[in-house]
């Protein structure tokens, strides 16, 4: 087999393609990421002031996590699909639209923090408490650095929280951080709280929101070395042993009031179990797996047709007005995807596709917002942007143990030096992108996005292709070009190829689903 191309039909058919709803879910995220700054079309929920669990920060963060998981598990040879959109999501989460809620929420005096009285309003959104925002910025910036080996957010001031008002506070306010200083700040904030966690709203240390900085610490360890995540998780378990990560009923505790040192866990919140389970599975899978069946038994309604839904938590349990959302449903789907409960995941997706207003827009698959909580028959009716834009896409694009693998199995140097797609038309769907070092071949399957003009010329840039020996490019079994280690030796007229330093530029007309195979001898 030496000096022969090893990419066979069997090899090709062994590499799965993303299905229509997976591609549509990814496209939905890419479309939202591509919106102009502060255009939140399709992302606005029922509540104001960014207070609820579907606020912009949560949508942006879990869309970015979904991008990261999709890149690593489905399209590892196509960073070009993800890098710019991921960066856009980071830029969006730095917008004052996303974080200035903190000036008001930091004043406290709400249902869970009356005991500490009214606090002075803070502008800096990460300096104290508010881990429900700061950890997402930290983890997104570090995940971006890790996945794309781009240190742009390590530069001083690269994560600056700025407001430049027109008619008040001349000069504005600017809180200057970068991924390292923000990470350090969160780490030391954890240390001085004995690793119990950093509060969200003043006095409120939620377990779930402290899973996110742990992910960020892990990404920091991958980028910079060290073992912050191991240190913090060890301390976290020790600190929570006083209160119980899991309560006597076998469900996750929700939060501790810092001042009172008291646990609060309303017994009516499915998201507490499913959101926690989804995230904690990254570093404590045994505990999550042990209790997961109880979560499903308690919260999931299975229908005779095989579909399933989760009845939303009553908003009054957290002192809120009744609002229609499907967060509990969405987190159940994410948790089922992470735990590999394919039966439940299928049932939840079937329910959503049947009952929760599915729609296609610009190639993106999503669910229209609906504020009505339940049907007259007691079935879930509500849908909200967070569930539609982030949670259900995440659940479709994740793989079993996907977050666990992201956390536990660092990408090796080989991954970054392999051939990969680094640039493409934004309107192109990539259904498959993988390089196999054993076969020495890369497969790319492309599809015109819904609405793209037929017979459009597409342009792809693929890097790390030179200095690897003789190779060729085939499109749907037609050889487009023969290349040696340094040059394009010959090519057909049905594609234009050009060497660009470390990469090759390929242009051709795309009419339908097309598979490219780059194969080395």
């Amino acid at each position, binding site marked *: 087999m030496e000096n022969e191309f090893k990419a066979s039909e069997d090899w090709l058919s062994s590499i799965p393609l993303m299905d229509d709803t997976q591609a549509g879910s990814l496209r939905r995220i890419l479309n939202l990421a591509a919106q102009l700054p502060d255009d939140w079309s399709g992302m606005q929920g029922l509540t104001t002031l960014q207070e609820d669990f579907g606020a912009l920060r949560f949508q942006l963060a879990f869309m970015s996590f979904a991008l990261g998981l999709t890149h690593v598990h489905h399209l590892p040879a196509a960073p070009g699909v993800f890098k710019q959109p991921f960066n856009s999501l980071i830029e969006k989460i730095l917008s004052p639209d996303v974080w200035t809620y903190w000036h008001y929420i930091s004043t406290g005096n709400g249902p869970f923090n009356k005991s500490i009285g009214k606090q002075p309003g803070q502008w800096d959104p990460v*300096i104290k408490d508010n881990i429900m925002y700061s950890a997402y910025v930290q983890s997104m910036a570090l995940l971006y650095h890790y996945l794309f080996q781009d240190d742009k957010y390590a530069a001083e001031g690269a994560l600056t929280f700025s407001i430049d008002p027109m008619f008040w506070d001349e000069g504005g306010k*600017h809180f200057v951080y970068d991924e390292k200083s923000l990470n350090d700040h969160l780490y*030391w904030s954890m*240390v*001085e709280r*004995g690793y119990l966690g950093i509060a969200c709203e003043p006095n409120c240390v939620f377990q779930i929101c402290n899973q996110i900085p742990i992910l960020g610490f892990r990404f920091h360890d991958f980028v910079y070395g060290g*073992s912050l995540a191991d240190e913090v998780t060890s301390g976290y378990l020790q600190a929570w042993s006083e209160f119980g990560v899991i309560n006597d009923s076998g469900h996750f505790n929700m939060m501790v009031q810092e001042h009172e040192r008291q646990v609060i866990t309303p017994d009516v919140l499915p998201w507490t179990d499913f959101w926690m389970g989804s995230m904690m599975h990254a570093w404590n899978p045994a505990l999550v797996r042990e209790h997961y069946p109880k979560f499903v038994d308690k919260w999931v309604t299975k229908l005779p047709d095989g579909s399933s839904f989760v009845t939303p938590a009553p908003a009054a349990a957290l002192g809120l007005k009744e609002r229609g959302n499907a967060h509990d449903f969405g987190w159940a789907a994410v948790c089922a995807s992470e735990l590999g409960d394919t039966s439940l995941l299928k049932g939840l997706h079937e329910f959503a596709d049947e009952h929760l207003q599915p729609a296609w827009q610009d190639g993106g698959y999503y669910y229209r917002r609906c504020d009505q909580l339940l049907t007259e028959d007691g079935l879930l009716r509500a849908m909200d942007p967070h569930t539609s834009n982030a949670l259900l896409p995440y659940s479709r694009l994740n793989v079993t143990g996907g977050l666990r693998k992201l956390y536990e199995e660092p990408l090796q140097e080989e991954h970054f030096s392999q051939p990969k797609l680094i640039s493409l038309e934004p309107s192109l769907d990539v259904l498959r992108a993988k390089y196999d070092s054993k076969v020495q071949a890369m497969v790319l399957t492309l599809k015109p996005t819904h609405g793209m003009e037929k017979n459009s010329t597409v342009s792809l840039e693929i890097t790390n292709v030179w200095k690897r020996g003789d190779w060729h490019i085939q499109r749907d079994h037609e050889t487009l070009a023969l290349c040696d280690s340094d040059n394009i030796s010959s090519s057909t007229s049905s594609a234009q190829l050009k060497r660009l330093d470390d990469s090759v530029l390929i242009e051709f007309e795309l009419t339908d689903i097309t598979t490219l195979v780059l194969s080395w001898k």
Partner: protein
Amino acid sequence: MEVIKNYSKPPTPVPGMFTLTDHNGNKVDQNSYAGFYRLVFFGFTHCRVICPRNLARLSRILDALGDRIDGIRPLYISVDPERDTPEVMKKFLEINYPHFTGLTGNQEQIDKAKKAFRVFAERKADPEDPGGYAVPHTAITYLMDRNGRYLTHFAENLSEEEVLERLTEQL
């Protein structure tokens, strides 16, 4: 927090200031060991697990440094000022961990030192010591430079070899 016009940067993670009394009764602060690196660990002499384990480990690491130990001042700062008087600390350290100098103070001074090193310590009932109490605390070792500024720290999950290697790199 540093504020320049409308720009503010995050605070120094570990300011490292303190005003305390050493186990010989001398008043000391972060400037008292000028010219020496400081290896700082917080704890309390009644501690049954964390302090003995860490002080013993750090003592072995200091021994492994050979002559370079002369450039370091190992400090053990109490989080239990009620019981840890200078005399108690001196007796505890001289017998068990002679490399270390104990530092203590009143509650306010200790609280300020804890804050300056971002240390968590909280007094709790101790089921194994009826009538007594424990003070669970951060088990981080801090390395401060010759001017008393934070250089790095060593968490408890690092191996002895890793701490020695990283400490040697810094000296």
